């Protein structure tokens, strides 16, 4: 199946600039702010957002990364053992405004897991959600506060976000799911 490109590197950068601006605007500055990316692409995006906030505000915002493998609700369904990646939140989350960052918001289950995990690290004042792509089709009552682009793809399609840091190419792509074998 051919994949179709929906956004390129330049457009992704514009989205990041806009999301960074919205985060600052919404929170009336960057004080008390911290970013937590969901590994691996949310982690890369969180670092880019932090760099952008630094450029706009001149302030270093702490950045953490979480791996939600141990909080998943579908471990039994996973065909292969997921490799547990590093979670590293090198700051106290209690009292902070945490912006959770991921590449694609789809069913909401990943975000649900990430919320549970962050709450095990302490009690943030507020948790907000920033995503590059919002696919709609939610299975849980979860919504994004900051969105790069809404892509109402059908469940038979796959939306991929590729970033230089994790994939050595960049862009947002859509393709049809391969028909299941057998």
């Amino acid at each position, binding site marked *: 199946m051919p994949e179709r490109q929906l956004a390129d590197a330049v457009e992704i950068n514009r989205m990041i600039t806009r999301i960074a601006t919205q985060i600052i605007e919404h929170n009336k500055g960057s004080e008390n702010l911290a970013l937590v990316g969901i590994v691996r692409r949310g982690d890369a995006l969180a670092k880019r957002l932090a760099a952008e906030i630094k450029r706009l505000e001149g302030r270093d915002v702490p950045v953490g990364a979480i*791996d939600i*493998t*141990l*909080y*998943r609700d579908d*471990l*039994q369904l*996973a*065909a*292969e*053992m*997921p*490799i*547990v*990646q*590093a*979670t*590293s939140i090198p700051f106290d989350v209690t009292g902070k405004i945490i912006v959770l960052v991921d590449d694609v918001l789809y069913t909401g289950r990943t975000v649900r897991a990430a919320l*549970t*995990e962050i709450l*095990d*690290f*302490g009690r943030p004042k507020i948790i907000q959600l920033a995503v590059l792509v919002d696919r709609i089709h939610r299975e849980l009552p979860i919504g994004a506060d900051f969105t790069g682009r809404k892509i109402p793809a059908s469940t038979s399609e796959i939306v991929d976000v590729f970033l230089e840091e994790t994939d050595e190419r960049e862009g947002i792509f859509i393709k049809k799911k391969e028909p299941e074998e057998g």
Partner: protein
Amino acid sequence: MTWTHKNLLGLEGLSREEITFILDTAERFHEVLDRPIPLVPVLRGKTILNMFYEPSTRTATSFAMAAKRLSADVVGFSKASSSVKKGETLLDTVRTIESMRVDGVVIRHSCPGAARFIAQRIDAFVINAGDGAHEHPTQGLLDLFAARKRLESFEGRHLVVVGDITNSRVARSAIYGFSTMGAEITVCGPATLIPPHFKKAFPNVSIETDFDRLLADADMIMMLRLQLERQGKGLFPSIREYRKLYCMTTERMKKAKPDVVVMHPGPMNRGIEIEPAVADGPNSVVLAQVRAGVAVRMAVLYILAGGELEH
């Protein structure tokens, strides 16, 4: 990585890739232990049965803690070894386990092969927590984990295991684990505490009775616990002589490499196989081993309980 083993009965037969996978997974759980709430929900709803037919404090506690840190439910019993006969009693136990529908069983037993015996007869996964003088795989894994924190790689590194080799499952699991990871191994102790068939069973492992000759070349030294109850059975003349020949002393440390890693599975007989100054010194990873034990057991429970098996 696709994990293909239902049970962990020993380190014998595990590949380097599989051992590395367990150790890498354990790194992540090691990080969980540092969290404000050192608990993850990954094994919620799973039940782990701890069956300890031999007295054990640290291993039983470590396994229970590992399971609880993963949000599993832990039930357990320990039984004085003296009243337990294998055969029928173990079979009865098997039926009990099956009817309780547990997901995993952790077993320690004085009979070599007890874990395998159970594993062949139940659906739940089985972790061997020590079966006689056979194996104690999670101990071997935690030794590897603690040593790996100090050494980049095991390739070509020299491990010396000192003490009662005949009766030590810790030594056996270490031999399998460390040799698979590429280390060279020498066992050392009085000839009476090294089994006569050893050379045949482990052709790649060297044997040496003179500890002092090994000091300069060792990258890792594992001191085994001298089982004091064995004294007086004619296996070694006296504790005093054993100490003189095989105790890891500050004097001996001076002859060893400056960054040698000193391990001990515990509980330590301070002043007999290891001097307190060495046990608490900078080369010792004894406490790191205990902490590694929880992380490694979390990793093993997670891997055995979590993923789909390839049939």
